[in-house]
């Protein structure tokens, strides 16, 4: 296992170097002049030039790159111009918000999608199978901002069950002292049940939105891989030996069907983390996706570079975890390495 991890780590380095170079060049290739943007509406040419010098954008590209890499070495990702804060602090503050939301949505989604997928495979062609198909198709075809707005409209505006969509906590709650950055976890660690409830109630609607969206890939993948496994010899043998269907399906079939499901989960997680921008916008969620998009709109280089870098590192870690999980689920993978 350790050799596996260290070997994967070695592969990461060239990846990251590539990411650093490409993000740097891509952000510079964006249309738009940050100096003109941040000089404000009333700035003349001279004022724009002053800003450009202050931002170091008057230097040749290679010098800017050198400075960027040197800063990276000191773990300095630069300053965001749109929010005025160091990028590293912003990512540190915002990543847990996005991660908490995504994880919550994913767990919610898994708890619905996996049973639904198994059931659809076992009762192939039944009404459950069709329901599963309809739910999955509907979920993936509704754009997230639409589901989000619809949920807000129904549960907040019409029914008043849900609290105001104002981010992670109601305005009159203060966030729990930061331990993990996950409000649910931190408030429980502090035995602060009212904050926990407040955080949970804020999390429900956006979590549900993400859940609806990610139902499709997980259900479909579970169903497909279950179907393949259910048709295989060892399942037939198990059933023929008189094991009850629960043991056959959950212990023998599902365990073998889990590999592709875990892969999909990993992909869905990383995809949601970066792509839930719209959910973050709708629910005023202070996450990393909306941060990156706002920066992009303003040609604000540093956060975009920091975001891509953070995402790259996250992907690498995620893949590593999935590889390790493979080994745990399926001993054959372990033997091959």
């Amino acid at each position, binding site marked *: 296992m350790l050799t596996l991890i260290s070997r994967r780590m070695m592969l990461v380095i060239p990846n990251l170097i590539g990411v650093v170079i490409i993000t740097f060049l891509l952000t510079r290739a964006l249309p738009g002049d940050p100096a003109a943007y941040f000089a404000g509406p009333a*700035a003349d040419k001279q*004022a724009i030039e002053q800003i450009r010098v*202050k931002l170091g954008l008057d230097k040749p590209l290679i010098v800017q790159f050198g400075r960027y890499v040197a800063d990276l070495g000191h773990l300095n990702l630069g300053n965001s111009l*749109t929010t005025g804060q160091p990028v590293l602090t912003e990512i540190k503050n915002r990543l847990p918000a996005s991660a908490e939301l995504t994880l919550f949505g994913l767990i919610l989604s898994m708890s619905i999608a996996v049973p639904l997928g198994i059931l659809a495979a076992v009762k192939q062609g039944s009404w459950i199978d069709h329901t599963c198909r309809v739910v999955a198709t509907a979920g993936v075809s509704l754009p997230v901002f639409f589901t989000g707005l619809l949920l807000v409209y129904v549960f907040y505006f019409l029914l008043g069950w849900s609290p105001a969509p104002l981010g992670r906590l109601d305005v009159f709650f203060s966030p729990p002292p930061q331990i993990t950055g996950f409000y649910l976890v931190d408030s429980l660690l502090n035995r602060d049940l009212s904050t926990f409830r407040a955080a949970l109630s804020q999390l429900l609607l956006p979590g549900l939105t993400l859940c609806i969206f990610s139902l499709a890939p997980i259900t479909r993948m579970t169903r497909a891989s279950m179907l393949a496994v259910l048709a295989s010899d060892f399942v037939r043998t198990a059933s023929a030996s008189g094991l009850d269907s629960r043991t056959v399906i*959950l212990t023998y079939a599902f365990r073998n069907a889990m590999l592709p499901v875990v892969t999909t989960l990993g992909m869905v997680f990383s995809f949601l983390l970066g792509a839930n921008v719209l959910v973050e916008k709708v629910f*005023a969620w202070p996450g990393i996706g909306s941060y990156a998009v706002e920066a992009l709109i303003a040609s604000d280089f540093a956060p975009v570079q920091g975001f891509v870098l953070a995402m790259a590192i996250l992907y690498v870690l995620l893949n590593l975890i999935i590889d390790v999980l493979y080994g745990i689920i399926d001993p054959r993978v372990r033997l091959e390495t």
Partner: protein
Amino acid sequence: MKRRDFLKSASALAASTAVSAPAVFSPAKAQSRQETLLIVSESGPNNLDIHGVGTNVPGYEVSWNCYDRLISHEMKTGSNGQPYYDKNKFKPELAEDMNIGDMSVTFKLKKKATFQDGTPVTAKDVKWSLDRAVSVGGFPTFQMGAGSLTKPEQFVAVDDNTFRVDFARKDRLTVPDLAVIVPCVVNSELVKKHATEKDPWGMEFTKQNTAGSGAYKVASWVAGTEVVLERNDAWMGGPLPKTKKIIWRMVPSAGNRRALLERGDADISYDLPNKDFVELKQDGKLTIVSTPYSNGIQYIGMNVKNPPFDNIKVRQAVAYAIPYQKIMDAVLFGLAKPLFGAVPDAPTEVAWPQPHKYNTDIAKAKALMAEAGYPNGFDTTLSFDLGFAGVNEPLCVLTQESLAQIGIRTTINKVPGANWRTELNKKTLPLYTNVFSGWLDYPEYFFIWCYHGKNSIFNTMSYQSKTTDDFIDGAVNAAATGDNATYDMDVKGFVDTAYADMPRVPLYQPYVNVAMQKNVSGYAYWFHRRLDYRTLAKG
């Protein structure tokens, strides 16, 4: 798993989702809510200091409420019956007395005034702050320059309580320019402690912290999420504000901002689409105040340096082909002040903005196109800033449709917000729509920037006219010397020339729309168009 078990667990999950949502407020929180104002807006500040590099407009709002200036404006009742700043009447803020001489103005500072950390405000602080404003470059220095305030030598601390500004030249904008947001007074001793060799003005510190004597101080700021401001009970600049705490949350989705207002959870919001404001107004559950931008205009500009818009007849044809009323109705839902279709014999007024006499008249436009030598029209592009696509896009589509009727075939060019100023500053866009507005509400101020031949960046049309320049210069001199007759003549002169030559076609004055709960009072319109928390009250 049996089918029935699964269904049971699934419905249990659904039920728990619905039930666990709690009531929004507990009674204990109702009290603090009464003394707190919740403001929701699309974006928040990126810097708490208006002298900072690239401070955005929400940052101006923080500066306005957390810092004092020497002087401010009195209030009057605006044309819509709401409080409106009086551009001609000044009131002391940090100063207790202002004495305007021939070539200088002298202020006596309030003796009791202190900064939020308790140190007294002295003339030294005022000098340091104004020196800072003219030295840091960028927008603050530009704005100071607009009032002929350019050099630190102009600012003199006579003694601890007396401060003098020497005029560089006679300019009627100098004193008004001391009442805008930029010349705010900063706690110099506190900021100097945080200054470094690389950052002599302590800008890194003031970016994150407010160091003023103003009515509010920033208690916490999470960029892009929330700003919390608390009242400074020792404020000397005016009567103590009624609201103890301001919570300003960023809610990017306009639909949600409206929902928050309608549900009564948010107290004030001001950047909603026009359609929402119209509907909210009809509903009548909220107070909606609409005020036209002072000295601000949305216009269609034409590049007069290059053909075909170098031809005055083509420009007039465009002015006759714009679907003014359709834009007012379908794009703005009536929430703007029209600047077109003045009655033909209406006299030109000594005022700006004022309506021109063009109306949508396709036949006349076609005739002008033929006279100009373009009977078959031509192809061009119509550009707009995507950052304000909500208004700009439908406006441009309507204009495109209408121009096609007189043979001007346009391709719409959507420019991303970050790129808009760069594109505009190149002065090569043939046809575009844009907004200009000035803090200082004087006709000649608008014309110096937008029409004068010295070709500032706001003269986006590259318009050059000796006649106009003479009128503008004449008006500036007449204003400085107080020669009203010449001033009136010159203002009428440059307005008439601008409307005859038509390098840009004014469409309307946009409205600042503010929606608030019925129990919120004290909203006032300011030249900067942001909120002044000091007069706002609840209940």
